[in-house]
């Protein structure tokens, strides 16, 4: 079949040799390590690390402006890179993750192709990275062992991200945790590309990573804890959320962000639920169950290692997250972040993190239901919870977002501090001016 019949430019075996695959940036540490796994398999990979307002501008130029913000950013970042002159457009391919779910994110790849067409770059191949095999690219195949290694990349990334967040607010020397994470990312990436990723090695690395972070000079004090949940791209990507993590840290908060592994587990779990709820996916059940068990075991090992080390707080086991969400929203809600979003808010509350930022692109369809739509029931179960929903968009301004975040933070501090920021109620009374 020709490309035209298929409706897309195929990534051929030859291209594997000649083309550099550009990867959009969402989670720098995770993606850097995963990129190295791919390089080991013979692909040329480059992670895009560009930022700045021109990315959104380029996106708005080539993508329907009512499309969700992540699409505008991801596509804008690709085209901005292709137009920068840094790459030979005949020697570049792009890659995007495609879930095949009922939310419009599954269409990003098609929007990207349309945008490329519009920009006169229609010949650039776009690889769809999906579990359900929506498209076929002969030059791009991921074997089980490779996928397994990529999962190790996700695990490393999650651990590093969590440790940075736990150290940053307390470190004596500003930036030391971030710097350490950077060093680890390099080192782990190198290790991945030199082939050394036996699982035993991974477990040993966990312990070394934990030790090194524990050694960062820090002063523990009581800080406001703020959880961040939301649509996956704006939740993680500093480009998508106006550098939310940094803003919160600068405001003196400790940030808690559930990791990427939960999202992977969520994707696998939904396919098992499709079978349970509707009798679908019968043939692939064994595969999904095996994948689920694999991921869950790996998560359990990670949690146990962190717990055994004793200094840091471990992630929550997926099965516990699943248990928490029962009765609040059905797990049949599986588009976008679906029930996982609700579950993560409950998970944070369960951990005692009662301040939550729920991020979403403006007009995000699934988040109407599982984000904003679930806040009332979540509040009913956790009266102390302090959630703020923030919309991200090309036109939304920082002032508007920060003012709402400040309200959430003010309430959080009021609750945390022994001495109230306002004078005690009994001691202070303002008498309005007489009319």
């Amino acid at each position, binding site marked *: 079949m020709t490309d035209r019949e298929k*409706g897309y430019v195929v990534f051929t075996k030859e291209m594997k040799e000649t083309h550099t695959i550009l990867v959009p940036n969402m989670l720098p540490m995770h993606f850097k390590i995963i990129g190295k796994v791919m390089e080991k398999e013979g692909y040329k990979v480059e992670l895009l690390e560009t930022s700045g*307002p021109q990315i959104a501008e380029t996106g*708005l130029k080539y993508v*329907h*402006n*009512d*499309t969700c913000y992540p699409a505008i950013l991801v596509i804008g970042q690709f085209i901005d890179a292709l137009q920068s002159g840094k790459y030979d457009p005949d020697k570049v391919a792009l890659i995007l993750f495609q879930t*095949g779910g*009922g*939310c*419009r994110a*599954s*269409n990003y*790849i*098609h*929007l990207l192709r349309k945008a490329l067409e*519009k*920009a006169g770059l229609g010949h650039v191949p776009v690889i769809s990275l999906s579990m359900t095999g929506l498209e076929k690219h002969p030059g791009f195949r991921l074997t089980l062992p490779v996928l397994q290694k990529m999962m190790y990349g996700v695990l490393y990334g999650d651990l590093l991200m969590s440790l940075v967040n736990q150290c940053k607010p307390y470190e004596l020397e500003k930036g030391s945790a971030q710097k350490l994470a950077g060093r680890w990312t390099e080192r782990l990436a190198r290790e991945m590309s030199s082939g050394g990723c036996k699982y035993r090695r991974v477990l040993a690395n966990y312990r070394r990573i934990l030790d090194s972070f524990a050694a960062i000079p820090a002063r523990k004090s009581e800080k406001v804890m703020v959880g961040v949940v939301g649509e996956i791209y704006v939740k993680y990507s500093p480009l998508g959320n106006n550098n939310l993590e940094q803003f919160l840290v600068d405001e003196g908060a400790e940030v808690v962000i559930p990791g990427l592994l939960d999202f992977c587990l969520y994707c696998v779990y939904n396919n098992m639920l499709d079978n349970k*709820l509707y*009798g679908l996916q019968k043939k692939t059940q064994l595969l999904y169950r095996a994948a689920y068990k694999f991921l869950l075991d790996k998560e359990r090992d990670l949690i146990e290692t962190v717990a055994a080390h004793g200094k840091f707080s471990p992630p929550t086991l997926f099965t516990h997250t699943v248990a928490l969400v029962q009765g609040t929203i*059905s797990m*049949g*809600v599986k*588009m976008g972040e679906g029930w996982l979003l609700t579950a993560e808010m409950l998970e944070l509350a369960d951990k005692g993190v009662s301040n939550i930022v729920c991020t979403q692109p403006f*007009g*995000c*369809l699934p988040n*109407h*239901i*599982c984000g*904003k*739509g*679930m*806040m*009332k029931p979540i*509040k009913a179960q956790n*009266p102390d919870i302090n959630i703020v929903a923030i*919309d991200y*968009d*090309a*036109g*939304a*301004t920082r*002032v*508007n977002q920060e*003012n709402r975040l400040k*309200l959430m933070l*003010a*309430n959080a501090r009021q609750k945390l501090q022994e001495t*109230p*920021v*306002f*004078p005690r*109620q009994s001691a*202070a*009374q*303002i008498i*309005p*001016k007489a*009319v």
Partner: protein
Amino acid sequence: MKEQSRLSLGIDIGSTTAKVVVVEDRKIIFEKYQRHFSQVRQKTLELLKEAAAQVGDRTFTAAVSGSAGLGLAQNAGVPFVQEVFATAEVVKRLQPDASAVIELGGEDAKIIFFDGGIDERMNGSCAGGTGAFIDQMAMLLDVTADELDALSLQSTRLYPIASRCGVFAKTDVQPLLNQGAKHADVAASIYQAVVNQTIAGLAQGRRITGKVLFLGGPLYYCKGLRIRFQETLKLPDENAVFPEYGRFAVAMGAALYAESSGGVYTIEALTEKLENSAGTRSEANLLPPLFASEAEYEGFRARHAAAGVAAQELADYTGRAWLGIDCGSTTTKVVLLSEDKKLLYTYYSSNRGDPVEIVREQLEKIYRQCGDRVTICGSAVTGYGEELIKAAFGVDRGVVETIAHYTAAKYFCPQVDFILDIGGQDIKCFKIKNGAIDSIMLNEACSSGCGSFIETFARSMGCGVAEFAEKGLHSTAPVNLGSRCTVFMNSSVKQSQKDGATVEDISAGLSVSVVKNAIYKVIRAGSASELGEHVVVQGGTFYNDAVLRAFEMELGKDVIRPAIAGLMGAYGAALYAMDLRESKLISQKALQNFVHTAKAATCQGCTNHCRLTVNSFGGSKKFISGNQCQKGLGQAAAKELPNLYAWKRDTLGALESGAEVRGVIGLPLALGMYELLPLWHAFFTRLGFRVEVSGFSSRRIYEKGQFSIPSDTACYPAKIMHGHMELLLEKNVDAIFYPCLTYNVDEREGDNHYNCPVVAYYSELLHGNMDDLEQTYFLYPFLNINNKRELSKELFACLTPVFPDIGKKDVRKAVDYAFSAYEAHMLAVRKHGEQAVAWARRHGKRIMILAGRPYHIDPEIGHGIDKLASSLGFVVVSEDSVCHLADPVPVHVLNQWTYHARLYRAARYACEHPDVQLVQLVSFGCGVDAITTDEVRRILEDAGKLYTQIKIDEITNLGAVKIRLRSLIGALEEKGV
């Protein structure tokens, strides 16, 4: 040490006003409230100076609050307290028995609940319904905010006005004014829109009851607004508290905060801190200047000066003349042309909310100047007010805007192949191919980058429009403001001002934004070459040289701007009338006795009860507007054309409720139920239930449920669901059924067969946010609708806990029965589609596929657009009634939603038949349609068909839709189709 009196100062800088209070020993000794016109720092310093008279050189504690205060405090290093947080603290002290606070500010709206744990909420990023909105609306009515309030107190009725955001509301208000609605009623309706927005946007499932405190400037000043709030919330007087300190609550909170957490200053020290707080601008957000050099500017001016029009003094002319009137959304334009097409008379002015009066004045003036020398041989009118003006003054012809503009542009530049017109409210773009309009793009309701938008900003910075434009030309570093709606833009402008941008830079930046909005959002062009070779730009906005220049820069090519850019509609109308020889225009004598009164009425023609405005012009001359169909106009109803939307409504409405054996089941007629009602109805009646359907929607139903909507940016078809549930609760049904369907019916068309997330899971949201659903059984099982066995199993599991005597077999049988009913229904839909098409061909009528979703047939959601199309002579069919007549289309998107797969096939059907046109209905906030619209447009345009899109939300006025459909007809006629 001697105990000193405690002095504390609170500064509250909101988006439009600055407030300062000084508190001494807990007594307020100074308070001041002032607009700051975005001059945040200067105004604050002025207020401090005034406070100095009370404070002297004593030290005091101080803190800043407010949305615009955030940046100021950061830059100056003065303690900041978030305004909602501060308000709550003040209220806890001054009104401990308050159960809720509603505070409206310049651009923010807030609600604080005190009962059962404090809960503070602010409006999201897309929300009008605040002080700035009221100001904007007052401007439309050409009154001050105070006058608006006074007017509202004399109202006798309320019109529905979309309340989601200012841009939408404007679309409703403008036509009301143009159609002659009473200003008092419009004023009160504007306030009601604010109330609705506050409730729908912020209450989010909590009822506002108990003692409610109303704070903030607008609620302090607008008595009419207070009345609307109190009535809507049904608050008795003792529970609606409008405290005297309402404007200062935030500032008082800041002063209170300062006592324990503020900085310590003297007036002098604080002044100095603020003076030195100018922010720094980041280079990243700057754009290149509009002109690199003075020479470039001169060249630009010279080039555009060439596109002039010959004129002649009316006083020196004798002979025949033709009149053109363009009664636009915000301005009225009048042109008189001589035999050799010279301009004899021109007029361009704001409507001031009463276009009839303006046209009357102008006609009087023209007649006076014409004397006996000049005879008006023909006249034509175009624009929003076309029909009103035509009826009022006996204008000979009405011409749809697009045709008027094209006529004018063609006269100017015969080879023109692209016209961009940016007016006060609209952006219109037409591509011309082979001498006919080939495609029309108009701005959607939510993209406001138009003339009135720049005007609003100019005024808010204390400039006239011309002066503002002039300033923009000389900016050295225009700010990059993005290209979004007004609400977003306001905050961008504020932010850049704080960063030190000048009025010049903002003016230039806004010009670039308007242009980008037009090119990328409305035209959706990727490059200049897509537009065409000969581009003519027009509309009043292009008088603004900064906009013109920005447009040329963005395109990278020169364009033609006629010197009469703002008059092109009227000019085109006059040209259009020039083949007339004798005019029926109102005579000079009759004009002296001209009277115009407008009266409100409710149409009794059908259950829709349209709210009409009856304009009388003395004698029996009348013009009625506000109607969705022709029925109530007292005219003999034209023979009704086949209309699949109407047929579907009749069919669904005729379903019998069934005998009550087991109980009563309520089905909300919204979202996916519009598609599956025949199925569920059959299922439940077969099982022995009486089925209560909530019925078609109305505005009233929406308002019934709006308090429990948690996400106000969801689409209208979803939000209206809350009202349907309330309605069913009132009917005391035993259970309400609306299942969650991740997968829709598999019609084997696309890559998958999903529902959109909102249709699929809205029940989860209803369950979580509507407390009253606990009064009944709300059944929302997750179902596999494509497998009868699975479905029966799932339904049985869902029903037995509530109705234990239902057997498995009963369910199984009912499911079989239900599917045959559903299939019969779908077959009937297709059969009626075919019949309608055949009928149209027999009678030589145009066919319109009104392509949307099943729920767009709802009279409230679809706003009767099908009836309008019908009255314009189209046979209306729905997408699902004809999609089977074409083969599946290869599409360049993931074709994974059942409803949307039908769209693509219906589009293909339109491509294959010259007498079929497709008009796509899109609900605001429908994320999926951002994908489908581009694809449907591509399918149609690849086949050389016109693509028309109508974006609908709560907007009830059909004025803009009518223009769109008539433009379509006009373009078809020109093409000879």
